[in-house]
């Protein structure tokens, strides 16, 4: 029993110190963003490896998710004779939930894990330390550009995911199953609100982008500089990102759509 309590206490202490280190790291990263803006080339390099290289997985997943929503929505709605509402259903699920959440989960798996591994290995091979000795702040030079790129890419990727999903749903709904195309779009436009749905969806994806990039970069920076340490940190990035994304999604949904 005492052993259990001791264990619990130790875990609590280590998680709190980690949270503290993480917060300090985040503050340093954010303050480094100013110097990134002075050197946009660094940002573009990272937008390329974070955003552009995630483009394909996001668009293809978006298309398939939209097509599945089209099929499933049609089967359910046609029982009530409400096939015209397919557009609303597809768009609302994508814009409010699936777009931001699935994009963030894919992002954590595709770009987040890569970021952790990259930073972790740079630490293990003394590249970060070497930079410090060359009087170059690795936070400003390495971390902040990646953070900014992740943070900017996420809403763009999520918007792409939703847009392509809606088109995919329309392809299945009116192309294959015979839902009236005009009804698909007009019902959607009548029921999807710009402020409540689109803007809230974008806010969600910005929050997820912030949190996922933070977790990925911090886990890499905080990794034990051995191959095992880096591999564990990569796993933690994916797991912790998934938990944070889903937990935050619940909180944000309650706040946004709660009334």
């Amino acid at each position, binding site marked *: 029993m005492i052993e259990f309590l001791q264990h619990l206490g130790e875990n609590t202490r280590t998680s709190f110190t980690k949270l503290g280190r993480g917060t300090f790291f985040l503050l340093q990263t954010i303050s480094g963003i100013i110097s990134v803006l002075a050197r946009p080339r660094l940002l573009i390099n990272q937008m390329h490896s974070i955003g552009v290289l995630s483009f394909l997985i996001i668009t293809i997943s978006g298309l398939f998710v939209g097509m599945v929503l089209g099929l499933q929505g049609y089967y359910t709605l046609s029982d009530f004779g409400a096939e015209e509402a397919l557009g609303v259903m597809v768009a609302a699920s994508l814009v409010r939930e699936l777009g931001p959440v699935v994009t963030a989960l894919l992002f954590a798996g595709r770009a987040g894990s890569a970021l952790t591994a990259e930073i972790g*290995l*740079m630490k293990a*091979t*003394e*590249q970060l*330390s*070497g*930079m*410090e*000795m*060359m*009087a*170059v*702040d690795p936070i400003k*030079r390495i971390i902040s550009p990646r953070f900014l790129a992740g943070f900017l890419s996420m809403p763009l990727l999520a918007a792409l995911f939703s847009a392509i999903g809606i088109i995919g749903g329309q392809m299945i709904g009116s192309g294959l199953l015979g839902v009236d195309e005009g009804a698909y779009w007009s019902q959607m436009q009548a029921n999807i609100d710009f402020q409540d749905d689109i803007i809230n969806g974008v806010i969600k994806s910005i929050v997820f982008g912030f949190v996922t990039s933070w977790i990925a970069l911090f886990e890499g920076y905080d990794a034990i500089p051995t191959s095992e340490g880096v591999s564990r940190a990569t796993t933690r990035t994916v797991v912790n990102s998934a938990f944070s994304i889903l937990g935050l999604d619940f909180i944000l949904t309650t706040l946004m759509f709660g009334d």
Partner: protein
Amino acid sequence: MDNSVSHQNSLVSVRNLSFSRGNRKIFDNISLEIERGKITAIMGPSGTGKTTLLKLIGGQLFPEQGSITVDGKNVHQLRRSDLYNLRKRMGMLFQSGALLTDMNVFDNVAFPLREHTHLTESMIRTLVLMKLQAVGLRGARDLMPNELSGGMARRIALARAIALDPMMIMYDEPFTGQDPISKGSLVHLIKSLNNTLGLTSIMVSHDVQETAAIADYIYVISEGKIVGQGTPKEIEQSPSEWVQQFMTGAADGPVHFHYPAKDYVDDLLSTGKRY
């Protein structure tokens, strides 16, 4: 501990330094002086924290007690920007080379120039090629770090370390894991750079022969204390058994072959812990 080296002419002075990692004391109240324009070697067995000493001098780690001054400035009391300015004048050669793996050799050497100066690309090109020529690898400028052998990577890292024309260079185990030819070329390089550029060099190593060949002054560290110091000749004739064991590489002596353990027979006969 008395210091035979005159303090006026020293670039780096370490005074009464203590540092520990966890419960292990890595340095226990040591003092040493690094003379300007000379090659000073710090020797000792692996795991005695020689790399830690370089990181302390570079201001990456903080001592528990004592002070380190470099060029008259107390490293650990400098403001961040002043520390960074001081670091621009210190080069460090890491054991692994620590080249940035996402850029080629040329960009690696150009990295400190691009970060810290506003030179034009053509001036940077000239400087980089000069530095690469100095280490004999001008022809390798387009290779990526993963295409380099260990010795080449270290020479590139050396070119990068001298890119900003520093006042001193710290070498972390420059000879470890090198074949005899690269060892020879590194020895030659370190010596000639030190002479031609008027550098001060601090070298951390446990390679006795190579170090003794080029060092002007040697400190031998063991278990957090300085156990011997002097010119290579003085060290060779040191009366200390410990220094003798280290320099000749005998298996047993003051440093035992066995890691501390309880009595062998008792250990075999006891039941032990089941895993």
